[in-house]
């Protein structure tokens, strides 16, 4: 099975969020605030589920209507076979890479047959 590497940033506010990529789970406060590099395995045609959990009502601090501190996870980059998906590509072709609440987003990896067309779409 191919390996992928996720670079993400964990934002802290009353600790850090829990995060799940496929079967790999990081409990709340397990990730320190800052950059992290995590691995996961995938197969063509798989759906990789990204879930943030463990954020409470008081885990966002506001001042004058602006967020000054937040518990969040932001995907910066995924390196997989043949390509690197950067933050902007998530915004443009996949989904918002900012997990600001307890939520789930699904990364659908195309089948072997569909992969080249998907590759051309996400790199254009």
């Amino acid at each position, binding site marked *: 099975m191919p390996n992928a590497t996720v670079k993400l940033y964990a934002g802290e506010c009353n600790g850090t969020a829990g995060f799940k990529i496929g079967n790999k789970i990081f409990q709340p406060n397990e990730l320190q605030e800052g950059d992290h590099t995590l691995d996961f395995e995938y197969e063509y045609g798989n759906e990789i589920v990204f879930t943030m959990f463990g954020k409470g009502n008081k885990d966002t601090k506001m001042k004058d209507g602006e967020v000054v501190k937040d518990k969040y996870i932001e995907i910066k980059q995924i390196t997989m076979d*043949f390509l690197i998906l950067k933050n902007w590509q998530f915004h443009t072709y996949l989904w918002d890479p900012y997990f600001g609440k307890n939520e789930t987003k699904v990364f659908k990896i195309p089948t072997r047959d569909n*992969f080249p067309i998907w590759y*051309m779409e996400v790199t*254009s």
Partner: protein
Amino acid sequence: MVDVLFVSASLTFSSSAPAAPAILISMLEHAGYSGSFYDFNSYTKGDDNFKQYAISGYRPDNIIKFNQDFKYHVQKIKDLNPKFVGISVFTYQCQSTARLLCIYLRLLAPEIKIIVGGQGLSSVGVQGEHLGKEWEELNLCDFYVVSEGEYPIIDIVSGNHQNKTTWNQIQDLNEFPIPNYESYDLNLYTQSIPITGSRGCVRRCTFCDIHVHWQKFVFRSGKSIANEMIVQSQKHGIYHFAFTDSLINGSMKAYKEMCNVLADYNRTADQPVTWEGQFIFRPKNQMPEDVWRLSSAAGLNHVSIGIENLSESVRDHMKKKFSNEDIIYGTQCMQKHNITGTFLMIVGYVTDNEETLQENLDMYTRLSDFAPNTIRKVAIGTTLAILPGTPLEIQAEELGVTLGKTENDWSGPSTLETRLKWRSDIIKHATSLGFFVPENEEQQVLIDKLQKEDA
């Protein structure tokens, strides 16, 4: 089953047969392995989707057909049953298609090992950053080769290759077997066969990266080159040869030796050989008229010459080492001996100014009697590109040059806007004198129209 199938990545517009696969196939066979060639570029270069993808790197308009066409070719490659596919990335414009070809092969034929090589894996000149390591890390390839592939290809098939970004220049070109074109469909190309007599250059021109990459000028014996031409012409029934060398008269000893053998051969051959290549003008004492006569008898019929600039002071700064009188002398000899030429030019050198522009214009006027029959073409190109590793890049600060985001976009003694104006002035002037300048837009429109009508 074939050990290595070489596949050319699109997009190269050249109508000549690619030289590298034939050289590498002969090396493999010499070492007891087998090799073959599939010219993916020739099969796809006329297709708008392939052109669009290669040039832009973006999804082509008809992505469904593009996908089907790619799969068709990958199936053809699979049918040839190779253990390794060696993807030849000839220029940077082949990078997008080469990358996609790696992906299709990985997905549809994961059992095939992928090798990538070719100068196109370096962007911005031969000293630019090489993509091999990145492609290996992204699992696009198993092996990558930087620069010369003769020995690495044997190491790869015999399991002794370590990917690395450094390389050692081959010092003796005489030890290699004659290139093998048997798996080529030679009808796909203009009727000429490529040949390599040397690598590197005898000059150290300030704008050029060839002498930085190939640090030593190495060359074959004249007899060995002539012998290859005679053998290949008899084998394939093709009698014209195109040299891939940076210059064919770098070693005058080897050059004259080759010319002597070919002139003797041509005197009695049913089908004499002819040839063309890149050339340097030399002063009369280094290249007397009898050598021009001998060259013509040996079959030389066209030379491409890096004149670069028609101002002597600019050429002196470039370290070109020939005078305006040498240009006139060489062109007169070409005319006398029925040898045509393409002048390769650079506009907007770092020491160019309004005065040197006028010197250029005056010299075009002086040379106009030779246009267009002897000087067939003047290739103006873009404007001076400052490439990585060249003396100009290294001395940029000293020359008052600030490098830009791209190789052409530098500033200092002149601006890009000024250089483009000089370029336009030269194109207009040369065209008005009867020179064929492909960069002239009106001429280009006419050429495109004629080509469409021919097709």
